[in-house]
């Protein structure tokens, strides 16, 4: 089954590489580990939310705003899409990611449409 492991960060936390923030080498180590397992079928790493652009609509008008977005307490940092037999396997991998310690990881099964 395919699962997305969404790495969610807290806006209030220190950035990766800064004091008190996660160490980028931990993420790289995890990336090597999970890639070596041969289960990764997709995913992405994102630039920080300060570089995000939001598109929505208000009263029929398109609204385009740039980050950072003060009203959001969390943001998507990146994801892995993995293919493993059960949810327990996905949970096992999520636990090993440094993302579970800083912020959280949300596991979502890929929809079958």
């Amino acid at each position: 089954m395919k699962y997305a492991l969404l790495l969610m960060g807290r806006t209030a936390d220190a950035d990766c590489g800064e004091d008190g923030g996660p160490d980028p080498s931990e993420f790289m180590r995890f990336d090597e580990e999970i890639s070596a397992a041969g289960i990764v079928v997709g995913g992405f790493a994102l630039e920080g939310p300060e570089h995000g652009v939001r598109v929505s609509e208000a009263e029929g008008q398109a609204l385009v705003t740039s980050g950072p977005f003060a009203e959001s307490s969390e943001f998507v940092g990146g994801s892995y899409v993995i293919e493993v037999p059960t949810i327990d396997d996905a949970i096992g991998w999520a636990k090993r990611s440094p993302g579970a310690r800083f912020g959280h990881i949300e596991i979502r099964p890929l929809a079958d449409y």
Partner: protein
Amino acid sequence: MATESAAAARALTVIGEEDHGRLLAALARTFHDLDLAEEALADAIVRAVETWPGRGVPANPQAWLMTTAKNRAIDLIRADARRARHLARLRIEDERRPGDHEDHADRLGADLDSARIPDDRLGLFFTCAHPTLKEPERIALILRFLAGLSTAEVAAAFLVDTTTMQQRIVRAKKRITVTGIPFGTPTSEVLGDRLSGVLRVVYLIFTQGFAATAGPVHARADLQEEAIRLARLLVRLLPDRTEPRGLLALLLLTRARAEARVDEHGRPIPLEHQDRRRWDSRLIAEGLGLAQAAAGEQGAGAYTVQSAIAAVHAEVRRD
């Protein structure tokens, strides 16, 4: 008409509660789909009701039901592309050949030796008690699929109406399928991690209490009795483990004192004032035996300890 339905009812009495549970668990494990298993088995039972009174009950009724349900499950998978894709995605077999969904279902079905129905109920326990399910969902699923209560009886246990409970159970089954909660016998690692969670669900069922005199239309099942039966089943399924016996001892010793615990107005009576002649001595004897044996074992854990405490209370000398 009356004779026909009476004959059908008689025919179905050869299939006990145990058999039904084992059939369901085997089908759920084979096809990794509890909802599918339930539907296929229900359809097979309908076929039995239709054909057995006329043709006679088969020599091996469980095997007949298993074969019929298995074939029905394969038909259901073939007819539903989504189910077929789900099965393929689970990669149950070693190799996965794309576009092979139908053969996949067939091969799985062939593995089910209809002459010998395996006991997959331990796996079903662990599936229904999986930590990613919410606690009320776990209780409802175990009452429905392992204790064999009807949806109406489970609804009564939760003090909700049957339709509401039906929806909850449908959602819980959907969560199992969509999230990818595993089926199959747990490994010893999984057993080590999660057995206490499974026992906890049985304990919660016990503490939900007695049959209520008031409540929804259908009689409320005696949940303490159901919990004891589930604990006995776990003892049989896991004979080498201590904690299931610890739990059973705890439940028996607690149940044994039920009659003495409240007065005629329903007010609780403290232990030192309870009339011990109203304790059930058979349950006490069995509970004490289990508790004492379990206490000395390496696998003793929380429930064994609690049963030891209950044993002390039960051994208090009569005046």
